[in-house]
């Protein structure tokens, strides 16, 4: 009995530290999930027309934050192209803190899976969306509520195992 209690406390303490090693600090749960998309008044990247929240599609869509200076976005791009060709989901882009010519050049090189792009030159919309590591992708429903956020490149696994089931769940709820 004498040795038991300190031992239990010791093991308990070590267990906390041990599990602490595996806590994922890179991926931070967004406080915006379940909230409405913030309002914005920006322009469309290609045409320069005004773009705001009312012009977004009235269905579930992906909101993908990208930039031409972002290397991971190139890796993600072929997956986004696949998703666009799948025609289940529209993708709206947010071109984040980028030069217009660079962004348009990037799209002409790698192809354009986006319905259109919101041009966020100052990064204010990115700030409102809590963007800290491009690429980031939001799943938004037809009421403009953010349902999920994916930090880093969208992979085939994320698309098949997370996004598609999520869409089915949202559709069932309606």
């Amino acid at each position, binding site marked *: 009995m004498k040795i038991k*209690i*300190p031992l239990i*406390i010791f093991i308990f*303490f070590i267990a906390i530290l041990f599990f602490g090693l595996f806590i994922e*600090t*890179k991926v*931070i*749960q*967004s*406080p*915006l999930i379940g909230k409405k998309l913030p309002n914005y008044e920006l322009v469309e990247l290609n045409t320069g027309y005004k773009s705001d929240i009312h012009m977004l599609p009235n269905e579930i869509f992906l909101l993908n934050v990208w930039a031409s200076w972002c290397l991971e976005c190139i890796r993600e791009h072929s997956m986004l192209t696949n998703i666009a060709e799948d025609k289940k989901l529209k993708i709206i882009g947010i071109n984040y*803190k980028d030069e217009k010519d660079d962004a348009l050049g990037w799209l002409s090189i790698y192809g354009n899976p986006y319905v259109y792009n919101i041009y966020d030159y100052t*990064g204010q919309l990115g*700030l*409102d*969306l*809590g963007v*800290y*590591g491009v690429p980031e992708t939001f799943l938004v429903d037809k009421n403009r509520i953010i349902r999920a956020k994916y930090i880093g490149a969208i992979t085939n696994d994320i698309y098949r195992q997370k996004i598609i089931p999520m869409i089915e769940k949202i559709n069932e709820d309606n």
Partner: protein
Amino acid sequence: MKIIKNFIYFGILLSIVQPVISADIETKNILYNQMITEIRCMVCQNQNIAESEAPLAIDLRSKVREMVDEGRDEDYIKKYMSERYSDFILYDPPFSPRNLILWIGPFLFLFMISYYFFRRSLKK
């Protein structure tokens, strides 16, 4: 003669207003410098935005500057940041059920240890 008089009036007015303005600027600067050390740079997570030169840190600094100049207080700025980037962005996270163990854990631990030693000394 009138011009000189006006100049003197202007000078008196300036000497009254100037300390008020500079005191205001001074408190704003203090708030700004305090806030940027309390906000975490999300890109380089072990630095605050005062230390970091990451583009996001620069953006957040200028956002803090903007809000301070608008006359916003500390709570407003902290809320603005945590609404977008979660409590993780604050180096001093607010008390909430989720981090309850962080706040009371050490005290609980101290209590348990001291209780144990107290019991042991009683037995002796």
